[in-house]
């Protein structure tokens, strides 16, 4: 049987990361999407980290572009004047990468080890997964109406 984190643990980690760095003024609320349905935003950012060793998996985060921009300005502590033109792509990639790093690192800590956590890979666009990867846990949520998805994939070992 493939080891998988409990969905309640994944949700707790996501909510803890969210409230610690983004505050609770705009809470992240669960918003389940039916299994197999696409992430509900065409314009999105995504990031992934892989975990390898005692447990082999990938953790991905997808979030709508408005949410990625909002996340970046909040994490950088930018003022209204500084955000007039929006954050730079490099800063959005940095913020979204750090988000998946924190979530992935905490999920890794729950699973069999020792394992190594990769550096994050970030893309402006949806996350795509190889056909051999099996999704073992997923959290769909919304913040201020904007969607975010955290998913855990494992590659079944032969």
């Amino acid at each position: 049987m493939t080891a998988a984190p409990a969905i309640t643990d994944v949700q707790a980690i996501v909510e803890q990361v969210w409230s610690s760095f983004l505050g609770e003024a705009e809470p992240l609320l669960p918003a389940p999407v039916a299994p197999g349905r696409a992430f509900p935003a065409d314009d999105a950012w995504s990031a992934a980290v892989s975990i390898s060793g005692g447990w082999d998996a990938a953790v991905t985060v997808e979030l709508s572009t408005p949410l990625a921009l909002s996340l970046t300005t909040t994490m950088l502590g930018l003022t209204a004047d500084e955000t007039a033109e929006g954050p730079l792509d490099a800063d959005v990639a940095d913020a979204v990468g750090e988000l998946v790093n924190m979530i992935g690192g905490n999920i890794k800590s729950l699973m069999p080890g020792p394992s190594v956590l990769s550096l994050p890979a970030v893309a402006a666009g949806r996350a795509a997964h190889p056909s051999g990867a099996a999704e073992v846990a997923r959290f769909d949520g919304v913040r201020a109406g904007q969607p975010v998805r955290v998913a855990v994939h494992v590659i079944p070992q032969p």
Partner: protein
Amino acid sequence: MKILVADDSKVMRQIVIRTLRQAGFGGHDVVEAENGRDCLEKVATESPDLVLSDWNMPEMNGIDCLAALRAQGSQVTFGFVTSEGSDEMRARAAAAGARFLIAKPFTAETFTEALAGVLV
């Protein structure tokens, strides 16, 4: 006192510096490093009193940086700020000579507790 904040993420360096301020440690000089190698060089050139370092970084990771510092004879106070807070990682950090490990996500209270007795 001087604090060296090492993290490949500019966003996270900003958050660490902001959290230091929120935890009541805003009066210290702060120097930044982008990876373990940069951190190693800046410990030599900047002589910080405390290093707050990420673990997982390109070029040189935090644990290798700490090992290199100790191999060079540096006894600078060193603490990790990392997304990996498992018992295994904490044990590795302590064995390498780290004073503490702050797991991300953290709060200002986490910093206050970890840095009590380290920063005055």
